[in-house]
């Protein structure tokens, strides 16, 4: 029997009376690396917000078999490039998922340093967030997300605006977190080719879940017809 971490059944979500997600059903095992792709406005971000409990479903259910979730949104609401906090201060926020009034102990500081070390930013811990490059800032968010030792890591288009070399490095880091630390990862990306090599499961979302399965099946069953359709409609 497989060990499920997430089950979604018959999920619907509407914005202003319009269905954004329709009848989404799937489940995910612990230790998997799920890549979700789909066109703009297809409901990817909405699905992640439902999974992480930020939004509530209109219909259907979401069962999470963990409460240790970390989420990195598509856009950080505060204008993070000018936010007056150091890398270390941002990462230490991740500790709060253990309890909102938890004091940061000596042990927690070690965890913060370990997380920073893992993403290769230990030397920059006293820098203001805005002094870092886009790729480095993204790794700060990863450190914040993993410092509380999560079981599920959810990322929404984390590599937008990051150059290709750093994107590749970023996916290697995620692959490491997934395979070495056993963290289940769900990532939304518009970049099929980069994630296809890293993920264990691939999903194609466009209001409905048109496909979920192995990457190789995805390329056989989905990408072809989609491209074909694209060609034919020109």
């Amino acid at each position, binding site marked *: 029997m497989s060990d499920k971490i997430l089950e979604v059944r018959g999920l619907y979500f509407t914005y202003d009376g319009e269905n954004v997600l329709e009848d989404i059903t799937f489940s995910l095992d612990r230790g998997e690396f799920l890549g979700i792709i789909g066109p703009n406005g297809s409901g990817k971000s909405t699905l992640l917000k439902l999974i992480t409990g*930020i939004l509530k479903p209109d219909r259907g259910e979401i069962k999470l078999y963990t409460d240790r979730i970390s989420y990195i*949104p598509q856009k950080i609401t505060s204008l993070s490039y000018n936010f*007056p906090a150091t890398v270390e201060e941002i990462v230490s926020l*991740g500790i709060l998922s253990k309890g909102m*009034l938890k004091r940061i102990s000596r042990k927690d500081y070690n965890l913060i340093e370990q997380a920073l070390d893992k993403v290769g930013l230990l030397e920059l811990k006293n820098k203001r967030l805005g002094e870092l490059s886009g790729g480095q800032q993204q790794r700060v968010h990863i450190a914040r997300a993993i410092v509380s030792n999560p079981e599920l890591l959810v990322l929404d288009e984390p590599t937008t605006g990051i150059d290709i070399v750093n994107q590749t490095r970023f996916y290697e880091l995620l692959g490491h977190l997934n395979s070495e630390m056993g963290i289940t990862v769900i990532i939304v990306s518009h970049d099929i080719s980069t994630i296809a090599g890293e993920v264990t499961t691939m999903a194609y979302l466009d209001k409905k879940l048109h496909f979920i399965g192995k990457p190789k099946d995805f390329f056989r069953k989905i990408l072809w017809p989609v491209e074909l359709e694209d060609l034919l409609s020109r």
Partner: protein
Amino acid sequence: MMDILQYSFMRYALISGIFVGILCPIIGVFLVLKNLSLIADGMAHFSFGGIALGIVLGISPTYMILLFSILGGLLINYVIRRTKLYGDTVIAILLSTGLAIGITIISLARGTNFNINAYLFGSLLAIDEKELMSIILLGIPAIILVIIFYRPLLYITFDEDSAKASGLPVESINILLVILSAVTIAITIKVAGILLTSALIVIPVATGIQISNSFKKTLLSSVVTGIISVILGLIISYYLNIAPGGAIVLVSVLIFLLSISGLFDQKGYYSKT
């Protein structure tokens, strides 16, 4: 300088002012970074309606200010979340509503002996022992709550969705922030008046952000700026015989101008991204 402390009203003014100098920045830093600099202004103006109502009904204005700013803050918070409007639009509507209610009530109650100026411009030098007590009784719990909830407040300021996904009760923390802001406003209106309350909430924080590299230093330098502004402003107002609220805000503006001139810049930071 010590001679001004021989008057009890100056001592009360100084203690009240120091409370304001501490409270305004430690609440303001979260409001400013949430892009809600104007919310304090909205809440303060909205409470004008409460002041007028309180005077007519014979209820202490301090409690009415508290009640109305909490009400105003929660309304702004709620309407921003439930509508498609921008925050500053919602704040502008609420601010004018409160003022209009106040003006209407005052015009209806013509003849009541009502010193409007004290509320518009502040009455720092008129604070008596009883009022000082209420400032202390409201101010100390507020400061303690900020210390306790410092990190959760920082997390929801940085990113609400991430905080919510990690299990933080974001709505409750937001309501706490509104209530703490209301307490701050109720106290600050005594010092700087409705018109200048938001100045004390925003300007020292702007200085702190400008000269600091970390959140801790931002908080610390805003508080130091707030306290210096109050003390210096009070002394200046005493010797020049001018309104203390105005003097305090002008000192804070002066410090802010110095901060953007680059005078206090820490090594390695003064780069706009």
